[in-house]
């Protein structure tokens, strides 16, 4: 019995859909999509791509009839990526500039090329594009560093009709629990995720504040950016889904701990092998990218325990 994918799947709706998907114990995931226009969060597409990467021919997209060139499954590249689909349609360039087709990024160079080549396609505002580039760099770098022996990550993005840029990244690595446990005690995936988002905690070092290569701040920055731009963020790893909802009050709330955030935890019945992150971004017209970082900086300063104020300042010329 195929799973019917709703026509619209926002980031908040990915968790319940994943629960349904992972409850099936079949070797092949049969996912039925609407033939007409669909809007599925790119993070779900990346998760499906990662599953397919680990188990080829295990994800099957079902469509009742031929779909148009502007269908999301075409424009996102999913039809070409998955070997099992009941409909085929050659992708054509997307004149609306809404999609970054799903890409497999393997190292810093391909990441850099990806950001340079594809972010402009989104036709987002300059401020949003900067934020998108920043988030992509940090998210994928995080993956490339922490995923373990497996290499690479799937990344996909699109722009919704109201101007929100939706990003998805998924790897098929060792997952957050194993990564964090390399240097910190974590009793379960939920605690591991909470630690991973806490500033100063890095899987590469048991020292608070990280080491010379990792400050343990990347995921916290991602959350802060989502919080400041009042957009959601989610992480899937193993059998746990973390869904972060930003406060919609005028003042951004960036808490050091997920325990103090509006977070919904969802348990999956089977493992997602790896880690996936989804985040929505929209930097408003009046809010500049640098202003966003000013707010992030304030949040970070308040979040990190400091015995004394910084004695030295950076010198800019």
């Amino acid at each position, binding site marked *: 019995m195929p799973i019917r994918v709703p026509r619209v799947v926002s980031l908040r709706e990915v968790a319940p859909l994943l629960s349904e998907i992972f409850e099936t114990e079949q070797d092949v995931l049969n996912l039925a999509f609407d033939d007409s226009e669909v809007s599925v969060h790119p993070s779900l597409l990346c998760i499906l791509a990662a599953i397919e990467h680990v188990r080829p021919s295990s994800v099957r997209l079902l469509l009742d009839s031929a779909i148009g060139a502007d269908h999301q499954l075409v424009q996102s590249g999913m039809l070409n990526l998955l070997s099992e689909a009941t409909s085929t349609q050659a992708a054509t360039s997307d004149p609306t500039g809404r999609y970054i087709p799903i890409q497999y990024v393997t190292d810093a160079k391909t990441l850099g090329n990806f950001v*340079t080549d594809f972010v402009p396609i989104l036709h987002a505002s300059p401020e949003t594009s*900067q934020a998108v580039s920043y988030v992509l760099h*940090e998210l994928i770098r995080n993956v490339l560093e922490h995923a373990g022996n497996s290499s690479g990550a799937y990344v996909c993005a699109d722009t919704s009709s109201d101007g929100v840029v939706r990003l998805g990244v998924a790897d098929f690595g060792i997952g957050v629990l194993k990564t964090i446990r390399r240097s910190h005690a974590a009793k379960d995936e939920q605690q591991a995720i909470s630690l991973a988002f806490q500033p100063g905690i890095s899987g590469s070092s048991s020292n608070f504040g990280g080491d010379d290569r990792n400050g343990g701040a990347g995921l916290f920055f991602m959350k802060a950016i989502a919080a400041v731009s009042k957009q959601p963020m989610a992480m899937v790893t193993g059998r746990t889904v973390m869904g972060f909802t930003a406060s919609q009050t005028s003042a951004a709330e960036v808490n050091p701990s997920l325990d103090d955030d509006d977070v919904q935890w969802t348990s999956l019945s089977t493992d997602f092998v790896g880690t996936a992150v989804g985040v929505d971004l929209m930097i408003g017209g009046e809010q500049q990218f640098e202003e966003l970082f000013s707010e992030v900086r304030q949040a970070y300063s308040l979040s990190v325990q400091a*015995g004394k104020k910084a*004695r030295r300042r950076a010198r800019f010329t």
Partner: protein
Amino acid sequence: MRIHSSAGPFAGDKDAAAHIRETYVKVSLAKSQDVVLDFAEVEFATQSFVHALIASVVRSDPDALDHIEFKNCNSAVKQVVEIVVDYAQAEFD
């Protein structure tokens, strides 16, 4: 040191940052020479990049900042540099 030459307009490659740190920043400071990190043409720098570039140097000796010049930083890069400089000097329990 022109950061753009090693890292491009989106400074996010930590390996590049670590290389600059080890071969230029630390070497120069050890020789009591001033360090100039020129961010001209760099549109943004990730926190991870700047951390790999300077955090350990600042953490081990905050006075080193008196000998490090961050040049031609746009506002976004400045914010990230200041964040890293701040937390590199923070004390963690």
